[in-house]
């Protein structure tokens, strides 16, 4: 009995024993050899893939993996175990895929230890497919997308036909969840590093021209044309230039970059190497969040593999060009998403932005010309170079080309990571891909772009998703967080949540951001707090702050020093624009329509429904409930802190909230 857990070593052919070269890569031989080696290694064997991205791990993936390993060791099963990244169907983690010889790869979702037992007992041991646990049939490497489905499996959908995947177009995420991110061979077998070889044969200016012609725009938020950015840096004369990948994904509710780094690290390395060659940089930095330990591990391994076969280091691919990468761990500061702040952080300083010009393309890291792009931007580059600008620009809208990755989360049935062509409508994303709102809820808003973005209401559901339409609608593309909210979400509370976040993350350098956002927070706090008394000028203050709210927002937007400060009021401005009536309900009627702002609620015990059990009295943290056992209780309004504990614990639903 052989138990095998192949890592890079066990599938290594002679292929990776010597440095790769450009003609070799362009001949397609490494690709074919890697594919053949993989096929040979897997031939006649059953392969079990476990999704072990962060979401898989968080759902208990490691437990499943360990159980499978133990079964392998005890001889109960004899399979090859492989770890993959995240395919994006996060709602169904832990996902386990099984590829038997001569059969397509079949995917099981929400695998628990009990379900794993069923899967192993029926499919692995008896060859009976437990159909009710099957999600669909997925694509496997190196076979690719063309495979026949056996007749007895009719009715089981292919992944690409599932509603969640049907409207997606995967360029950046193509390999995520399919390839083993720890294996350079698998990336080569999928056509990896051919684009780099092709680029190194082209003059630098031509590489930039290709990227410019493709219409690729920065995926980190602002949407600046990538080709133009590269050209600025290319034109600078300097002994040293740098290329930096911004993987400091600080937006709450966004995990696009993490998934790409964990699932397909070689793709971004290839993109960076192409960018480095194009602008003439010999050194690159990857600035990645320290909170992403798995992504750091995958990147470190991938960089190491590349150095061994001459894809990074001196004279890469025997082209005469040097390029190497250094990992820098971000220490957790949202403001480091801003280019100049990120540069300060790389230099070992407090991550505070500085005025531009000079732009980083002129004076960036250590004062040298520097290009900073986002993870997803770099991940698009290899395909643009390999398939051509014309192919890329055929996808998307007139001014926004290609695809965009979104982290679809919140009150939506299928959370996950999706990649859609630009120009798709919000409605298609939320209802077709995301499967609508759970528990029969009503769609209220979609928050796009994180703390710098805005909330779009139902009337914007048919807005096409592209850079310019989103800006016109009062949101922005951002890095790709898309949080769906239903009627139980209070928009004032959401605005307050984001302002809290930006206030805590403001670097404190410029006054509009440091002081202005603190003022905004005070104003929102007075709106959602019930006044202790109507005496004095408290009521006046409330109304005054409301009048000031929009003015202060506009002031910060117009005067803050960096992009993050200027966009910080967006959550308020967009909710004021579309959900003004909610602000009015809070201010004039002291009422939170969604029932979220607790301090505006009043709690009352319905005397008829109360059986006098005394549970609420016992649980009340402020001793605000009085009453005798078996007699109906009463809440003392002045003592109630509106925590809602009584309503939660009451067995008779006698607590009335209004």
């Amino acid at each position, binding site marked *: 009995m052989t138990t095998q857990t192949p890592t890079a070593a066990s599938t290594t052919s002679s292929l990776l024993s010597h440095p790769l070269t450009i003609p070799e890569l362009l001949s397609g031989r490494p690709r074919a050899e890697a594919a053949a080696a993989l096929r040979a290694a897997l031939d006649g064997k059953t392969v079990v893939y476990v999704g072990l991205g962060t*979401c898989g791990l968080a759902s208990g993936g490691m437990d499943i993996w360990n159980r499978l390993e133990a079964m392998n060791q005890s001889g109960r099963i004899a399979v090859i175990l492989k770890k993959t990244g995240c395919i994006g169907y996060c709602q169904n*983690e832990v996902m386990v895929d099984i590829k038997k010889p001569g059969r397509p790869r079949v995917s099981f979702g929400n695998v628990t230890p009990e379900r794993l037992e069923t899967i192993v007992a029926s499919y692995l041991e008896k060859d009976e497919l437990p159909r009710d646990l099957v999600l669909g049939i997925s694509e496997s490497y190196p076979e690719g997308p063309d495979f026949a489905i056996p007749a007895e499996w009719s009715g089981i959908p292919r992944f690409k036909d599932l509603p969640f995947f049907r409207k997606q177009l995967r360029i950046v995420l193509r390999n995520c969840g399919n390839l083993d991110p720890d294996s350079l061979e698998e990336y080569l077998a999928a056509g990896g590093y051919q684009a780099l070889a092709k680029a190194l044969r082209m003059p630098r200016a031509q590489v930039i021209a290709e990227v410019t012609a493709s219409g690729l725009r920065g995926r980190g938020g602002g949407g600046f044309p990538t080709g133009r950015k590269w050209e600025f840096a290319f034109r600078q004369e300097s002994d040293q230039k740098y290329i930096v990948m911004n993987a400091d994904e600080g937006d*709450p*509710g966004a995990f696009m970059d993490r998934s790409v780094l964990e699932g397909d690290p070689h793709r971004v390395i290839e993109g960076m190497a192409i960018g480095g060659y194009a602008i003439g940089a010999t050194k690159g930095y990857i600035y990645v969040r320290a909170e992403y330990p798995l992504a750091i591990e995958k990147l470190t391994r991938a960089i190491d593999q590349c150095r061994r076969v001459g894809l990074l280091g001196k004279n890469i691919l025997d082209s005469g060009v040097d390029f190497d990468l250094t990992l820098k761990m971000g220490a957790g500061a949202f403001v480091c998403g801003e280019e100049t702040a990120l540069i300060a952080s790389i230099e070992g*300083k407090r991550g505070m932005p500085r005025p531009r010009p000079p732009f980083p393309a002129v004076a960036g890291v250590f004062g040298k010309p520097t290009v900073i792009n986002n993870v997803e931007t770099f991940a698009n580059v290899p395909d643009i170079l390999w398939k051509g600008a014309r192919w890329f620009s055929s996808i998307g809208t007139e001014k926004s080309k290609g695809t965009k990755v979104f982290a679809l*989360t919140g009150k939506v049935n299928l959370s996950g990571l999706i990649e859609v062509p630009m120009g798709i409508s919000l409605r298609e994303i939320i209802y077709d891909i995301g499967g609508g709102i759970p528990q029969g809820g009503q769609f209220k808003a979609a928050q796009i772009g994180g703390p710098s973005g805005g909330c779009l209401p139902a009337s914007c559901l048919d807005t096409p998703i592209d850079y310019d339409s989103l800006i016109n609608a009062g949101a922005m593309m951002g890095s790709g967080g898309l949080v769906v909210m239903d009627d139980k979400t209070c928009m004032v509370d959401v605005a307050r*949540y984001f302002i809290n976040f930006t206030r805590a993350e403001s670097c404190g350098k410029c006054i509009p951001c440091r002081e202005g956002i603190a003022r905004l927070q005070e104003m929102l706090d007075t709106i959602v707090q019930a006044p202790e008394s109507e005496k004095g000028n408290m009521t006046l203050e409330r109304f005054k702050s409301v009048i000031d709210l929009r003015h202060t927002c506009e002031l910060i937007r117009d005067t803050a020093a960096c992009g993050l400060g200027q966009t910080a009021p967006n959550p308020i401005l967009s909710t004021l624009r579309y959900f003004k009536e909610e602000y009015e309900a809070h201010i004039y009627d002291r009422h939170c329509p969604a029932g979220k702002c607790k301090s505006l609620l009043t709690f009352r015990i319905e005397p008829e429904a109360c059986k006098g059990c005394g549970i609420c009295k016992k649980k009340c943290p402020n001793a605000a409930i009085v009453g005798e056992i078996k007699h109906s209780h009463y809440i003392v309004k002045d003592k109630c802190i509106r925590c809602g504990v009584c309503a939660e614990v009451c067995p008779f639903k006698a607590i009335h909230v209004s």
Partner: protein
Amino acid sequence: MKPTCACQASRQIPSPPPALAEILNRYAPQKREYLIPILQETQGCFKYLSREAMIHIAHHVGVPVSKVYGVATFYNQFKLVAPGQHTILVCRGTACHVRGSDQLLRAFESELGIQAGQTTKDGLITLDVVACLGSCSIAPVITIDGKFHGRLETKDAARLVAEIRKGAGK
């Protein structure tokens, strides 16, 4: 020039403890760009950044202690006080917020009798918040010593805290 200020005087400090010296030796001295990696490794080793450690680091990197303190207080990652034996991190990302992480955080606060960012008096549990753990599909989510717990409700707080206390034999 003669040393006059406190940070210059720190040049006569005793040699750093072995574990810290080992970290410092891995980085070339007098290079500001290594400051953050050194702070990260130091915290990884000692769980927090002590005043003494920061003085040694300043000396190695060749910047005033005030600058090291400035960097250490700027980034969320760095802690200047020793954390408890166990750490509960409550995710405050947008998806978690929409699914009720604020109530969850309050439940932990009342269960432990401390505010986010504090440690219980017995030094057992530190409660903290994090901007986003990136596991939005199982929101609201927390980690206890790095282990994820997802799809939580407020009533789970008491159970999880009890489990930690039980594990610690208290």
